[in-house]
């Protein structure tokens, strides 16, 4: 890898020396996808990938970190094939993984509705929706395997919604023109996860999978260039355990919690992926984050997370804010029609309230920045806009509205104490999903041999923007149908040399974890972990959120560096390691977020274009839409860690570009006319 300076212009007005933010390294490419027609690639790969001799399977072992859709399905499937699997999760049971919270549905190209859907159309919609920043080979395979996913889930007993004839029901989702989303009322994530969880438990009972709950991965162990194991912390006793295997799979989810407030679970974190990154795994496109426009707004400074309200609400609700700032404190029912600004309908006459997620989110932010937000003040501004159903309630009966949105209205009322049947709902955008993640090739293997990454933890299929109902699809595709077929190619050379805890790489890794923990416990400063995490979240949301610009990102990088120093010198973590210590757990996760945040800002800074969830105010069309620069930026930005082993030392990351070429799709500017 050569060091060459990236062309940047130093800005003398800001403290951060712009020239030295990163360096550019060699280009990279995926070497595993075969040549040839796109619809034959996957079958070809399955054939060309070596098989593991069935008699050898029971001699092979695999570690899977995370038990969400991607992790549980992979662990179950590998266990079924006869391998030994060690599965780890930080919660008290594999069924708690945050995949469980997904509401809407799962896409599949079954074309049961006979409305023109096909594998190609799903592939096309996903690439386009990703704003042409994903690897087309991976996406085509995703569309191909989508149909098998539905079959598998039904066979496991997932209670999808049915029509009166007993066949599966479908609905359309997120403005797509075909009806390809399968759902289980408002709980599709939970039901899909339970299917995978039950399959996993069956394997645990069969003895092929050993489950370690309340165990959090702290470090990756690399021996002779291969990923061979992990150091995990037993969260009840504090004991650090070394586990070896022939391959390691990270299915550890997304890093949305770098923003502190997101729709993620409290414990969702980037630690597993970040530790791998620090050991050499490339982190790709970390600045691609997805913001969902309809979430319940922040109520106060104590807010711990944000709750998503299904996007379907925008089909019948009208979004508005008062025209005048002084009206923002009033009861919305007292504001006359002519004093209401239905801003989406005003700015986007043809799409109105149904503009895509990123447009709706940015528009909401702008009106609130002007001071015309509603709801309680958080800091200096009110952060909320109205989603009003009074028109719908006059058109339809309350019973009809309840049939469509009843459970959402109930959830809203439980949380806010207000009834959407009587008062307009208040909503605000929130971080929901991250398209960025560890870089993987067509086999879902990272650049570290033996380290595989699946689900939201990898970068691969959604480009710069994920379509609705496709996250569930990707997690299960990776876990059931892709990884089990590709990992064999690597494991065919195994089992690898047996290792024990005395191996220097393992000893060193464990020592590194121990000293990090000791350090965190010894600082005994003034600030709680949560207060630092909140501050990081503010910085990220403000400067690396819905809208980004050069100045803001540079400022953010400076602020994050200061905050990181503050953390390592002034954080207060009470208690010891040899006990259940939730503050210590959170401290470890925040330490990693403080490093990731900086990389996200560097990534956002270097990508001087707007695409999907990454919006640079300097790069927009006349209508305020994202303006891509395909000539300069049609690549995957895969970052190599540039720091040392010292906690908090991130150095200068190295950029490796993977050029994206589209042989089977024509690049177009995303248009909503």
């Amino acid at each position, binding site marked *: 890898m050569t060091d060459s300076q990236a062309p940047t212009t130093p800005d003398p007005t800001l403290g951060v020396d712009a020239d030295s933010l990163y360096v550019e390294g060699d280009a990279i490419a995926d070497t595993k996808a075969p040549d040839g027609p796109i619809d034959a690639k996957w079958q070809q790969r399955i054939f060309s990938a070596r098989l593991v001799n069935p008699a050898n399977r029971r001699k092979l072992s695999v570690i899977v970190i995370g038990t969400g859709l991607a992790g549980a*399905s992979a662990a179950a499937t590998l266990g079924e094939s006869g391998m030994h699997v060690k599965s780890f999760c930080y919660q008290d049971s594999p069924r708690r993984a*945050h995949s469980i919270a997904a509401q809407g549905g799962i896409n599949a190209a079954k074309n049961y509705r006979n409305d023109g859907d096909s594998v190609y159309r799903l592939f096309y919609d996903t690439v386009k929706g990703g704003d042409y920043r994903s690897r087309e080979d991976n996406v085509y395979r995703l569309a191909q395997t989508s149909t098998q996913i*539905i079959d598998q889930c039904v066979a496991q007993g997932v*209670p999808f919604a049915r029509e009166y004839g007993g066949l599966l029901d479908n609905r359309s989702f997120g403005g797509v023109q075909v009806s390809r989303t399968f759902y289980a009322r408002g709980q599709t994530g939970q039901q899909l996860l339970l299917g995978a969880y039950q399959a996993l*438990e069956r394997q645990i009972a069969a003895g092929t999978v050993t489950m370690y*709950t309340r165990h959090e991965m702290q470090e990756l162990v690399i021996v002779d260039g291969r990923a061979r194991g992990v150091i995990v912390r037993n969260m009840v006793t504090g004991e650090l355990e070394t586990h070896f295997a022939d391959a390691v799979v990270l299915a550890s989810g997304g890093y949305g919690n770098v923003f502190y407030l997101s729709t993620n679970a409290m414990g969702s974190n980037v630690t597993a992926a970040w530790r791998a990154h620090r050991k050499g795994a490339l982190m790709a496109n970390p600045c691609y984050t997805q913001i969902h426009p309809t979430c319940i707004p922040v*109520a106060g400074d104590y807010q711990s997370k944000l709750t998503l309200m299904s996007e379907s609400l925008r089909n019948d609700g009208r979004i508005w804010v008062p025209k005048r700032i002084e009206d923002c404190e009033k009861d919305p029912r007292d504001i006359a029609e002519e004093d209401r600004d239905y801003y989406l309908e005003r700015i986007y006459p043809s799409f109105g309230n149904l503009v895509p997620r990123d447009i709706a989110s940015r528009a909401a932010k702008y009106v609130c920045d002007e001071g015309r937000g509603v709801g*309680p003040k958080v800091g200096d501004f009110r952060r909320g806009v109205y989603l009003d159903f009074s028109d719908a309630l006059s058109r339809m009966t309350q019973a009809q509205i309840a049939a469509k949105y009843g459970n959402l209205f109930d959830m809203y009322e439980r949380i806010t104490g207000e009834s959407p049947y009587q008062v307009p709902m208040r909503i605000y955008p929130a971080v929901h999903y991250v398209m960025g993640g560890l870089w993987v090739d067509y086999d879902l293997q990272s650049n570290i041999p033996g380290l595989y990454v699946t689900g939201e933890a990898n970068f691969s299929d959604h480009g710069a923007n994920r379509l609705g109902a496709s996250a569930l699809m990707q997690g299960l595709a990776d876990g059931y149908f892709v990884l089990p077929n590709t990992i064999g190619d690597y494991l065919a050379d195994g089992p690898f040399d047996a290792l024990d805890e005395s191996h220097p790489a393992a000893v060193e890794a464990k020592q590194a974890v121990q000293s990090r923990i000791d350090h965190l416990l010894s600082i005994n400063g003034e600030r709680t972990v949560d207060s630092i995490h909140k501050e990081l979240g503010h910085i990220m949301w403000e400067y690396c959120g819905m809208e980004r610009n050069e100045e803001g990102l540079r400022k953010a990088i400076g602020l994050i560096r200061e905050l990181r120093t503050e953390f390592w010198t002034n954080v207060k973590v*009470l208690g010891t390691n040899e006990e259940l210590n939730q503050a210590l757990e959170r401290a470890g996760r925040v330490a990693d977020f403080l490093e990731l945040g900086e990389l996200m800002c560097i990534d956002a800074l270097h990508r001087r274009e707007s695409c999907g969830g990454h919006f640079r105010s300097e790069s927009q069309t006349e209508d305020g839409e994202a303006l891509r620069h395909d000539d300069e930026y049609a690549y995957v930005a895969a970052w190599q860690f540039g720091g040392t082993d010292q906690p908090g030392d991130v150095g200068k990351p190295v950029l490796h570009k993977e050029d994206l070429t589209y042989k089977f799709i024509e690049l177009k500017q995303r248009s909503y006319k």
Partner: protein
Amino acid sequence: MKITVRVWRQPNSQADGRMVSYEVDQVSEDMSFLEMLDVLNERLTHEGQDPIAFDSDCREGICGMCGVVINGEAHGPVQTTTCQLHMRSFKDGDEIDIEPWRAEGFPILKDLIVDRSAFDRIIQAGGYITAPTGAAPDAHAAPVPKNAADKAFDAATCIGCGACVAACPNGSAMLFTAAKITHLGLLPQGQPERDSRVLGMVAQHDEEGFGGCTNIGECAAVCPKEIPLETISRLNRDLLGALVRGDSN
């Protein structure tokens, strides 16, 4: 508002525990119950005291990880998960008693955190359909009558929180077990293993030390997902049938 909480503090699974009182100021009605505990914990940390350990994850009412007994009721005064309980359900000056789930099958790990792995072991004993990856027929090969699908869904919404056990005067986990048995037993895919499932799961349930059901109904009354009590009767039906039929798969 200002409230007083009495919380069960227990440093680890071997130690004795006791109730300790804390005052919490400036509680907003819009705060969730767990956010109130977060605020208390921040203060305790500043004062150098061990913060209260409690489980939570999604804070959206779906993962089943949170769950404490509030004033003697599992999940508190509203039939929902603890994370969805908000402080507007309480008044200024209230005293709130907070304890972990108490049952033989749920050993306490620390403070309000209990070990619910018994639930996973019950699922391991039969709460699944054997469908190895890749072996599935087309999704439409077995149509499912709509009312069976709907009923199966109602039973499938169980989040495994354990409130049923905490509320049951007999410490039984029958509602949890019955929910899964009902869900899978109503679907055509679940038929081949229907007998072995109920025998296995009920046997495991008993082995975990949960009590027997006397149909009191406290479980369904606190269940945040409103799992119907009739699932227990369906389990009984399956169980008697399986015992009578004798051979299991």
